[in-house]
């Protein structure tokens, strides 16, 4: 509690942000986007409890999200029917508890070892549950899934959840609660020892810990939060299908978390916000959005494995020393060059998408309002020229960035003396 009070500032900002955002961005689209972000934030933070904190690379985290979602869905139907005497606002908790129980079971099965063994078992469990979804139509609803109507009698708030904004506020409350709990969990003995087991399981056994038990509990807690996210998904969409427990959402949460950065608590929050935003907006602009998303993911893994949070935190010393201004010019130049390069790549991708996927590939295509024929060599030449020019300046820019960093390091060192 003392802890919460000391950090009240940050939490107050977070609460204010959650309250104000839908007022600023008040379109239906924006509010449903914000709702999705809230769910994604819980989901990816829960994923980072096992990946970042526990060092377990899971390919099946959506299982707990999905099962939580289905359970909450059935729960809401029972609430609507009056058989389950709890208010709708607590329905995500059904999902959470479901995730927890399944998480204990599968966690114990898969956490004997971390590393490859764990990753493969998680993949296997994911496939297993996804496959059994069609075998258990009573629970998973077959191909059409399970749906509900969230406008039930039993609520504790004055909301009837007929409007998206009401759902948004419910999601925001759960999200804030989950963030606080997950954050505090990193400060508990279990949270610390999960790090210890990740870094050095041998040593952890010699301070008295059963590493498998540590992993299992950590895993189960992560599954609990994942289930809550699933429960919120159920309320938000009022429908859930077996796809939500499959490989695609599992891969999605992995990428969100990784792009955001697994080494810092807030990393997955950034990742969830960014990736959800990209997925919803990019898909409206281009059919190739998954390709761009893949490019982003691969580039992050290759050149910024610490994720966005890692990049941000790398700048902390420079920021504190007031030296950011030394970095910004070279950053700007390198970024501009990278954008030119990306523009070229993008043109190539779009031309090829048009050629192979469009119904009338002979029709002219349009890119940034410029209309041209995909078959004409001009587009290709311009694209390749852009890539070449961008690449040339990017390489120069990269050196400049390196040099300005060296200056900054030097300045910090001498400033320290």
């Amino acid at each position, binding site marked *: 509690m003392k802890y919460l009070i000391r950090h009240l500032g940050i939490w107050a900002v977070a609460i204010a942000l959650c309250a104000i955002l839908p007022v600023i961005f008040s379109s239906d689209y924006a509010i449903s986007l914000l709702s999705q972000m809230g769910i994604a934030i819980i989901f990816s933070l829960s994923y980072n409890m096992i990946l970042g904190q526990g060092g377990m690379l899971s390919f099946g985290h959506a299982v707990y999200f999905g099962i939580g979602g289905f359970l909450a869905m059935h729960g809401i139907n029972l609430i609507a029917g009056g058989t389950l005497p709890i208010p709708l606002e607590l329905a995500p908790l059904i999902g959470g508890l479901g995730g927890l129980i399944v998480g204990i079971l599968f966690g114990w099965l898969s956490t004997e070892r971390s590393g490859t063994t764990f990753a493969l078992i998680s993949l296997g469990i994911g496939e297993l549950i996804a496959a059994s979804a069609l075998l258990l139509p009573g629970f998973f609803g077959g191909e059409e899934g399970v749906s509900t109507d969230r406008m039930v009698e039993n609520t504790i708030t004055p909301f009837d959840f007929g409007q998206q904004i009401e759902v948004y506020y419910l999601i925001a409350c759960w999200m804030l609660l989950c963030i606080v709990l997950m954050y*505090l969990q990193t400060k508990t*003995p279990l949270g610390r020892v999960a790090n*210890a087991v990740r870094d050095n399981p041998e040593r952890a056994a010699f301070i008295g810990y059963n590493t498998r038990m540590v992993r299992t509990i950590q895993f189960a807690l992560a599954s609990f939060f994942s289930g809550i996210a699933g429960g919120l998904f159920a309320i938000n969409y009022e429908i859930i299908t077996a796809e939500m427990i499959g490989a695609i959402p599992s891969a999605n949460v992995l990428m969100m978390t990784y792009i955001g950065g697994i080494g810092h608590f807030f990393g997955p929050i950034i990742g969830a916000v960014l990736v959800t935003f990209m997925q919803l907006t990019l898909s409206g602009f281009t059919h190739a959005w998954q390709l761009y998303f893949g490019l982003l993911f691969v580039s992050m893994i290759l050149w910024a494995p610490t994720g966005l949070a890692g990049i941000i935190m790398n700048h902390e010393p420079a920021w504190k020393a007031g030296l950011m201004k030394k970095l910004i010019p070279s950053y700007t130049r390198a970024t501009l060059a990278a954008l030119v390069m990306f523009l070229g790549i993008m043109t190539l991708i779009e031309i090829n998408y048009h050629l192979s996927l469009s119904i009338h590939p002979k029709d002219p295509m349009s890119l940034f309002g410029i209309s041209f024929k995909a078959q004409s060599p001009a587009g290709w030449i311009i694209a390749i020229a852009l890539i070449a020019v961008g690449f040339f300046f990017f390489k120069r820019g990269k050196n400049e960035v390196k040099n300005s960093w060296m200056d900054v390091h030097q300045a910090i060192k001498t400033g320290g003396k």
Partner: protein
Amino acid sequence: MSALALKLRNVRKNFGSSSIINGLNLDVIKGERQAIIGPNGAGKSTLFNLISGFYQVSGGTIEMNGHNITNLATFRINRSGLSRSFQVTNIFPQMTVFENIRCGLLWSMGYKYSFWHLCNQVRHLNEKAEEILERIRMTQRRDLPAGLLAYAEQRALEIGITIAGDAEVILLDEPTAGMSMSETERAVELIRDVTENKTLLVVEHDMSVVFDLADRISVLVYGEIIATDLPEKIRQNQEVQEAYLGKETL
């Protein structure tokens, strides 16, 4: 005879067809500091790995304070009061020095798998950690990531983690390997200090350390203990000299 902290009887260990430990017997008396010496490849580290449950024995029994601990899981052996360091430095490199020690305390102070305490709020846990830091003389380094410490400091930290759990029996595997003379001296002093009123079993190559620290010495050759005695007796033992020490060393 005084009570035994460790009692190994006819312990054997094979890796495939090669036999590393051949029917080894060893007694470690409660409260003594015993050193194990022996030529390279004699099986000293293997022996440590067997006692600490890191390897499963191929035969024989290991008792600690009268309880059979043969082939128990490592964490169970640790919980029943045995702690060890490793030949290769084995710390939590990404955590701070303070966190390393505090992690070493969590289980023994009863926090186990708790996810309802906040470590920073538990005063006696943090005080105990500070106290151990003080003892291993690393208070200055408190907030540094352990991976950035100098080698000798990492070894000292490992000793700190090893003793944090308040184990009665402590196994140290070459605690001064790779240290300079002055570092070694400080390490020996530290080990002597932290193993006060505990049982210590140490593997060490540096003979000055061994003779300085040990109450008794066991000589391990080809997977068998060929002698266990007081340091001066070991020094004079003909068999030991032939097998291992060589005349010029002494």
